[in-house]
């Protein structure tokens, strides 16, 4: 910076890149000033990740120019990128689970400098860095034992552990709850003041408008425009992203809600986790939202119901009858479905085809008593689900790892639609999913509810949960702190219950 008079910190011009025959980026431009937060937007598969990966050295461009402070750079790998001062926090966490927080943060330095490590210095430095971010994590803790939010913080600390000129954040807030997001934003503003350029990739448009100075939108590998945030509004961005108007993100609720509960939970407590005395019921056709901060026990509750975690006490009542779910096998036997928040680890089978993913829950109706599968019926079932869910793929035989996040999520859902589930628990229905696919997933939830299924949606995305739920339960410290009816829906009310405060009384 000192040795150049370039207006831009990063200047990527005419970048093209293809993987095999698939063209991912075509003639894309991205210009970021020093001390600027620049949002990179686009649907999944639009090429955002590829673009930043070219900047950081993970991928090499086919053509185009990358300038850093006016000088052309060609990073061949991430190490080159780091040396140049380009740090990335990836969507997929890249921490070493078995090492401590401090070791992870300074991983790139370990072994590089000296033969012996100065543990004290390492731990002190890590402590300072984490504290400067406004979080409190023991630098000696093993990463495996951290929550996903803490891991994300460590990831960010790691990116800042070197002299960073350009910080790239790829969907950093998907795991954060609102208070943590605010902390992250404060940090970004601080870094911005220090002159660091920040490239911020996110699907949360509200976030973008809160923090970004300017925006570049990608659509199908082509940039559809760059502008200061002040010159555009949400609708405009969505138009650029998906090339069409998006009247309403959240569909009209059309399901008729039954009067008797289809599923009831009474005094549910976990054996090995913080969940205690959780009681609620869901009626057929109802979408019940569960909100709360990260770590409040939302996912744990779902996994207790589904039999993945051991229960200490509590009753589950399905259609008026007491049921037992000691394992997911039993839960599925009672027609309860569960879509995990962790799509890649717990939701889909990445190396397997769409067909094999979807039929994994539904072999009974399509196989004979010796377990031989009627593949014709299987193909038909899968084809109709692919069509119904609008999964974008050339065929049912494509491996799920080759699909975008949104389409992967649809596959994870399809698994439970292929059997007649009575209750479906959906943990973070649209995490890391682009706007277009989000709408499709919301519509799908709506349609499923119409069939009289009881749906329980857990979400950290407040506009989302208010947009799709009929009723919201808010969890705080392992139990349900309060319930909000549709008229009471507001970010403030959810937040108040989340932190254990009563609602403001309005007279």
């Amino acid at each position: 910076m000192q040795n150049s008079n370039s207006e831009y910190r990063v200047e990527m011009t005419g970048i093209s890149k293809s993987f095999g025959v698939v063209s991912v980026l075509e003639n894309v431009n991205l210009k970021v000033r020093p001390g600027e937060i620049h949002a990179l937007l686009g649907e999944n598969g639009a090429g955002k990740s590829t673009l930043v990966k070219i900047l950081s050295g993970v991928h090499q461009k086919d053509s185009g120019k990358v300038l850093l402070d006016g000088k052309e750079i060609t990073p061949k790998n991430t190490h080159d990128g780091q040396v140049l001062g380009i740090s990335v926090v990836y969507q997929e966490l890249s921490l070493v689970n078995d090492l401590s927080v401090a070791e992870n943060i300074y991983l790139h330095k370990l072994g590089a400098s000296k033969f012996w490590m100065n543990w004290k210095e390492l731990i002190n430095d890590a402590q300072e860095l984490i504290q400067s971010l406004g979080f409190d994590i023991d630098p000696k803790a093993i990463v495996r034992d951290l929550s996903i939010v803490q891991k994300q913080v460590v990831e960010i600390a790691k990116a800042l552990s070197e002299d960073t000129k350009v910080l790239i954040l790829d969907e950093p807030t998907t795991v954060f709850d609102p208070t943590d997001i605010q902390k992250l934003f404060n940090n970004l503003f601080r870094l911005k003041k220090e002159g660091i350029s920040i490239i911020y990739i996110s699907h949360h448009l509200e976030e973008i408008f809160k923090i970004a100075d300017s925006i570049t939108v990608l659509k199908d590998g082509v940039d559809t425009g760059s502008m200061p945030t002040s010159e555009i509004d949400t609708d405009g961005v969505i138009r650029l992203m998906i090339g069409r108007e998006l009247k309403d993100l959240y569909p009209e609720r059309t399901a008729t809600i039954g009067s008797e509960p289809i599923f009831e939970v009474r005094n549910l407590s976990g054996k090995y986790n913080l969940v205690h005395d959780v009681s609620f019921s869901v009626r057929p056709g109802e979408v019940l939202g569960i909100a709360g901060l990260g770590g409040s026990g939302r996912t744990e509750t779902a996994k207790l119901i589904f039999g993945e975690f051991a229960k200490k006490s509590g009753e589950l009542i399905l259609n008026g009858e007491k049921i037992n779910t000691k394992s997911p096998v039993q839960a599925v036997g009672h027609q309860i479905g569960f879509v995990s928040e962790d799509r890649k680890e717990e939701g889909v089978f990445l190396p397997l085809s769409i067909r094999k993913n979807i039929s994994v829950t539904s072999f009974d109706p399509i196989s004979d008593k010796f377990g031989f599968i009627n593949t014709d019926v299987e193909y038909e079932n899968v084809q109709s689900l692919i069509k119904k869910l609008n999964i974008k793929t050339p065929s049912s035989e494509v491996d799920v790892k080759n699909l975008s996040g949104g389409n992967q999520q649809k596959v994870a859902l399809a698994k439970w639609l292929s059997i007649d589930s009575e209750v479906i628990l959906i943990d973070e229905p649209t995490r890391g999913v682009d706007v277009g696919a989000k709408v499709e997933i919301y519509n799908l939830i709506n349609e499923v509810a119409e069939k009289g299924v009881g749906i329980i949606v857990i979400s950290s995305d407040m506009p989302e949960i208010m947009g799709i739920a009929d009723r919201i339960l808010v969890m705080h410290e392992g139990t349900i702190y309060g319930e909000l009816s549709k008229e009471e829906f507001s970010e403030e009310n959810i937040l108040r219950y989340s932190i254990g405060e009563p609602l403001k009384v309005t007279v």
Partner: protein
Amino acid sequence: MALNLKQELSSPGGLVKLLIKYNTILIFVLLVVFSAIISDVFFTSVNLSNLLKQVSGIGIISIGMLIVILTGGIDLSVGSMVALLAVTFAILVNSVILPVAIIATIVIGFALGSVAGYLVAFQKMAPFIATLALMTVARGLAFIYAKGSPITFNTAGGEFMSNFANNSFLGIPNIAIVFFLIVIIAMVVLRYNVFGRLIIAMGSNEDASRLSGIKVNKYKFLVYAISGSLAAVAAVIVASRTNLGSPNMGMAWELDAIAAVVIGGASLNGGKGTVINTLMGVLILGLIGNILNLLNVPSYPQQVVKGAIIIFAVLLQRFEGK
């Protein structure tokens, strides 16, 4: 399958991709051509029939190994199981009627495999450790029951088995027919049966499998039991070929079986591997041994060559999927 092949061929660069995808078959064909060129004995029916007889035993346990490896596990006990079960079969064949001896051996194989299955599935023991322990237990038991020396068949039933194992039907050795039957059954089950689908799903993502309501433990248990049963079939065959059951049989066969599965492109992490490729892996290993024998290469250099070819085959597979 045919439809898939057509689709793959018509996609850009299809032929190259296909060759990479089926590289084990390619290596196999190349080895056959190479063998035929450098040795004029290779393509004689005596030699080919010997080759098939040699690979059948290891081939059968390789199918069991593949099924275990598909779930992300490993079964180190199969070599020793072959020894223990061959001794068991020899004792049985000398004391009860033949059908009972065969069935009892397979049932005992299933039971021994179940022990590994129980430890892995229900006691959450690492497959490597559980089957390593059973490996030494089985070998020890084989020596104990055989009192240290081979047990020769001495009944009519034994003679019948010996004839069966050393004769051919339409030019194909009977024991190779048994092997091929098992290969075909395994292919059909892995492709068209729920069992096959579920073990591949488990191997590719165990958490997702459990959360899809799959009885993960049941299937884990079963794969080891099946591996044990197949070790019993292999034991019956190898014992019959030599007319005796010896505690020294199946020495290090588990390693050959693992090598065959890996040459066949299966991933030790589970979820990836096919029967046809494992068959190719078995035949490739057999071919290497066979051609080196024909060229009069002594057995120690043979081991070096074998190892080198395993490394080469696995390196080749890295192009796959890229």
